[in-house]
């Protein structure tokens, strides 16, 4: 039985609200104000990149900008900076388009490279746990908060951005939107069209952190300690 106790529970709620139970034809009202659409409304792509870059300072994240032809060299510099001996990356279709498949091949001469492989099952998690740097693409990037939205699938596990000490997000320029409004709007519209959301959508904003000890900001708790965003033109 997948759903239990529903009827009595919901009829009690309806009774307390003093009306019959509602099962259909409820629609959201036109809300009287919609300030979320006003934020960075008429900003150009360049201006949004500026906002993103600025906010990276606040969220303890390194910001790098490059283009496709220079991505491999840029990524190499970032990895060297992290003194990476091992990397794990998503098996993303975009790897080819961005020349990352070649880059990973090249890197594998010097460091351990693991590309997420669904056929290996849990072994992927074990590898992610001992790897220095995780690399994946941002699906939607929120300029206002400096956030990368990661939509997982069988070739792009959650562990990649989570378990290694360092994380690098590859941000295609066209994924940048003003704020979370546009990302949530897209997922909502897809859902209405019958395209259900992935099993996990994770909005990641810089490295993990905590203020639980005397309100001191500690950067790097359970998730990554260091994060770099590479915006690619």
């Amino acid at each position, binding site marked *: 039985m997948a*759903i239990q106790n529903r009827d009595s529970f919901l009829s009690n709620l309806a009774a307390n609200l003093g009306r019959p139970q509602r099962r259909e034809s409820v629609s959201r009202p036109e*809300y009287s104000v919609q300030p979320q659409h006003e934020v960075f409304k008429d900003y150009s792509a360049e201006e949004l990149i500026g906002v993103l870059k600025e906010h990276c300072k606040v969220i303890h994240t390194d910001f790098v900008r490059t283009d496709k032809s220079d991505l491999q060299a840029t990524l190499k510099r970032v990895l060297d900076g992290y003194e990476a001996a091992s990397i794990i990356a998503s098996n993303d279709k975009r790897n080819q388009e961005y020349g990352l498949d070649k880059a990973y091949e090249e890197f594998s001469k010097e460091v351990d490279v693991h590309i997420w492989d669904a056929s290996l099952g849990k072994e992927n998690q074990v590898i992610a746990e001992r790897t220095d740097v995780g690399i994946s693409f941002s699906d939607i990037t929120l300029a*206002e*908060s*400096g956030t990368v939205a990661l939509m997982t699938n069988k070739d792009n596990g959650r562990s990649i951005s989570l378990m290694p000490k360092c994380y690098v997000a590859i941000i295609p320029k066209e994924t940048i939107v003003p704020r979370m409004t546009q990302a949530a709007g897209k997922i909502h519209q897809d859902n209405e069209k019958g395209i259900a959301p992935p*099993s996990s959508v994770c909005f990641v904003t810089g490295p993990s952190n905590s203020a639980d000890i005397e309100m001191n900001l*500690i950067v790097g708790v359970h998730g990554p300690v260091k994060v770099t965003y590479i915006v690619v033109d």
Partner: protein
Amino acid sequence: MSIKISEAPYKERIGKGIDNDFMRQAVSSAQGRFRNGRLTQAEELGNWEDWRQLGEEIRSHTLENIDYYLYQLSEEVEKRGGNVFFAETAEEANTYIENVVKKKNAKKVVKTKSMVTEEIGLNKTLEEIGAEVVESDLGEWILQLDEDPPSHIVTPALHKNRQQIKNTFQDKKGYDKSDTPEELASFAREQLRQDFLTADVGITGCNFAIAESGSVTLVTNEGNAEMVTSLPDTQISVMGMERLVPTWEDMEVLVSLLTRAAVGQKLTSYITTITGTRLEEEIDGPDDYHLVIVDNGRSKILGTEFQSALHCIRCAACINVCPVYRHVGGHAYNSIYPGPIGAVLTPLLDGYEDHKELPYASSLCAACTEACPVKIPLHEQLIRHREIIVEEEKKSPASEKIMMKGFAQWASNPAAYKLSTKVARSALKPWTKEEYVENGPGPLKGWTDVRDFPAPGKQSFRSWWNKRQKGGEA
């Protein structure tokens, strides 16, 4: 642990809070930091009032149609391979979860911070059947090792200093490094990593469930919610029935309000939104998913004048501005929900009997109402509570008798009003005629209609309390 955290009388608990210098200092600076964060963010947006308005409209609409949206939510979770259990009581919720854990033969359970699981006393239930329960939020982990209840809903270990934390780690986990926050946290990272990897079941709370897609959103900074939802094969999300929004668009607005109001961040480091079980060929995420929807007294609030208390998104902004909380700390409320919202909600969920003093734990300065991102009229609800208590006890003109207890003892005393902070003092100023306040504006009205009371003076609560302790009325 249930909603109550102690059997000690109020007077004792308040005394404890006031004697704890570190705690008071910590609370006060945390309040300041959180408040500044919130104000900076609000200012930057420019139209904060519009955001609050939108937040309130979303919450009202959702609660007015809560049966519809819960129905939709459960349908969608089922479509995504999950199970949904509707629990009218804490016991029902605990029994269901206990059975899932038993069936899995689970030895270890990892949890994210969740107020509702504290409310229903889940950890105790699971420990009784022999499962090891590990809290993975840093603050909660510290408290768990030390067997101490939380004192703040956003930073639960606010009352502990680093030396105490170091000692706890030493005694309980053999820690041998310094008391710098970085080293302490890195030790917690190592220790908990093992727990994440070996846990059989992950249990999370829920900031917002999204009805349209059967998703659950978790708002965190540490990354532990990601771990808990990614690694164990069985996952249980527990939600208070009101933690619900119709769509992703509504979730987005409320998350923006929550992170700004709670910690002054545009977004926290992780906004994790999970939907059902992992899909075919996926490796991370559970293959067995359960959503437990808890009533536990909430439905009694529906359809009453207190319904908007269910709009609360647990941001703690009201707590961070509260002058009374500042002085007594979280534990004095004897509820896992402290501060103004705790004073409103606790008597509603757990009855007036044990919590009569709570509605008096307020100077009615209305700072809470102003701070609330979803515009819950907190101070008005506190006044209504007082009226109801008075009516119930059929003792008019009220106040005096009940107020002889605990919190009430000082909150009701004319001298106690002198504890009201600058906020109250400056708010009162224009209406102060000589020493007495007559017919104050909004927040004071409910009170001054009944009787005039002395204007807050400059004496601090602490000095008043000390004097009072030494004997007689201050």
